């Protein structure tokens, strides 16, 4: 039972990270209609910038994540302007190739600046909590709490604020939205910026329990694609449910079956969803 509780919390913390990363990706897919393969690289860059502000400059932890997130917002906007916007009328393959190019560029950039070595980011949040006999580190509790707060804020932003509603409007009908005066290219910039910002928060939260390296985004990239396909491409609730479901499935299969299966579970889910219900759990995105 203790093991179960322990793994449930480990799964929830992992789920929080997956969610934050997946939501950005699903938003970008909803608005720009492209799979942003550079998403993992943005996550990596976010982690390094957080590390830079925390360790090199000496800003407090939460502020370091905040500053890095804002900087990544700018990077996201730049990525949209310089890479995806010029390609908006070209075939989809071009976007993917461009995204892969951006990914390699960011990785090479990080290696040039911070080197290829693994780096460790220490946080001021230490200590353990005992919950029903399980030892849960405070950092994991922070991950879960922050993920929930950020997700709630995001939901409010998209459902209630004007700028957020434009994202949803464009997702639903690009032409219709522009007819009522929404500028699609502004929304595209906002969305990519937002997705990079969310990825940075995820990275800043998970970095202390993991290591930084220029390729740290690769593994996450695959997982978040599995999540948004499971949840339904472009669907916000889908990304949230998918993120937690996949993370818990991963930790539980690794615990009760084998670690090999745990690693594979994302891809088993991916294949199963594509075979049985290709639109995912929450069908929302209208494929055109």
């Amino acid at each position, binding site marked *: 039972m203790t093991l179960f509780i322990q*793994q449930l919390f480990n799964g929830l913390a992992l789920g929080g990270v997956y969610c934050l990363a997946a939501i950005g990706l699903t938003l970008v897919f909803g608005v720009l209609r492209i799979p942003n393969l550079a998403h993992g690289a943005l996550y990596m860059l976010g982690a390094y910038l957080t590390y830079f502000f925390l360790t090199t400059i000496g800003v407090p932890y939460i502020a370091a994540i905040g500053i890095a997130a804002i900087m990544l917002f700018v990077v996201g906007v730049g990525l949209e302007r310089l890479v995806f916007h010029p390609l908006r009328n070209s075939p989809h393959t071009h976007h993917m190739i461009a995204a892969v190019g951006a990914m390699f560029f960011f990785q090479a950039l990080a290696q040039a600046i911070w080197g290829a070595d693994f780096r460790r980011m220490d946080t001021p949040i230490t200590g353990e909590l005992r919950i029903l006999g399980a030892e849960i580190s405070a950092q994991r509790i922070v991950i879960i709490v922050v993920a929930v707060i950020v997700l709630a804020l995001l939901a409010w932003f998209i459902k209630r604020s004007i700028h957020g509603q434009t994202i949803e409007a464009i997702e639903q009908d690009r032409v219709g939205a522009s007819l009522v005066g929404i500028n699609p290219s502004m929304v595209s910039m906002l969305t990519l910026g937002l997705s990079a910002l969310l990825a940075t928060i995820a990275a800043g939260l998970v970095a202390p329990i993991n290591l930084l390296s220029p*390729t740290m985004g690769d593994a996450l990239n695959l997982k978040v694609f599995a999540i948004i396909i499971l949840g339904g491409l472009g669907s916000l609730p889908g990304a949230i449910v998918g993120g937690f479901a996949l993370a818990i499935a991963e930790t539980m299969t690794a615990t009760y079956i084998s670690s090999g299966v745990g690693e594979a579970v994302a891809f088993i889910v991916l294949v199963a969803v594509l075979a049985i219900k290709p639109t995912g759990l929450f069908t929302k995105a209208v494929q055109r």
Partner: protein
Amino acid sequence: MNSVPRTRSRRLLSSAAIGTLVFTIAACGGGGSGDGGDTVVIGYTGPLSGGGAAYGENVKIGLEMAVDDLNDDGVEVDGKPVTLELKSLDDKYAPSTAASNAQRLADQDKAPVVVSPNAGAIKAIQQINSGRSNFLISAYTSDPAIVQSDNPLTMMIPPNFESYASEFTETGMKHGGKKLALLGTQSEYGQQWTKSITDAWKEAGGSVGGDNSVDYATVSDFAGPVSKALADKPDAIFVGGPSQPTALIMEEARKQGFEGSFLVMDQAKLDEMATVAKIDNLTNSVGVLPVSEYEDPGTKDFIDKFADKAGDKKVPTSETALNYQGIAIITKAMEVSGSTDDPEKIRASISDALPEVDDKYKVNGFPDEITDQGHLLNPNLEATYLDDDGEYTKVPIDQVSDAK
């Protein structure tokens, strides 16, 4: 009738472009090998980008340091002064790329020796190094399969990893207990180690729990796998992959209340691990001896020079130190054989060259012989036990035969 001249001019333009390109390539090729006998290229193919980049860079630093030091000392082959030049190519850990890199280094740059730090890549290079092109492989891997293949032009640098299993088992049992959990990495090499440790542990009368190996490179949070491994209440845990994630796993295990001993695979270096985790979380473990604990004549100077080159935050590891030694051995073999371009002669002279190598290049367990299959043997191989006070105690290792 506008289109005809346009096509023609395009053709002209493209043939001009191709011509220039061919000319440039030819000029480049000439530049690498055309300087006569005074420059010898040491080739290196290793992962310089992607997931293995840190490892590849560590090896490269050792090679660069060796080439710089040897050039400063002056190398003389057959009465003529020779300058060494290191040429590095990135293979991103892919054996096929490594093989084509090696071919290129041998053909284009006339490198008599190519360094590779990865068993898979070495096996691929062994297909091409003694046939149409001839070059010596300076092989940095502890997988004995590369000498079992009887390749005449291979020099294996590190000790055979199978040598560690029985001593690690004995030490791990003494300081932990009879029950082992497996938490190594899922790479091919990690799995070979897991098997070797499992066999030795069972032979010594211990019990081994289920295999909890995880891919150290892709797991986002080690808490899950660690909780699972600890659920069996083991007395000892086998861990190991790259140093830094290994350190995180051990730290997590200690945080979750594990008090037994750790058996640390040779890929992870205890002193390098201490750069990312507190040493208190790494104690009671048996692993390979850190470079700084070696007492070879050149070790101290080597560590100082390494700090100058790589910064004092980085820890010199055997990847750097053993390759530093390796290049010194090969260069001495060139001097002894009197040839810079005949790999067979160079390989045949390694045995005579070993006692001739200057003391400053003896940094990390210097070998005193090379086997017929090409394995350098250090007569006093030692591992280490890191005790609860954070002190290293040397553990002598009996080396096993490289035969299958």
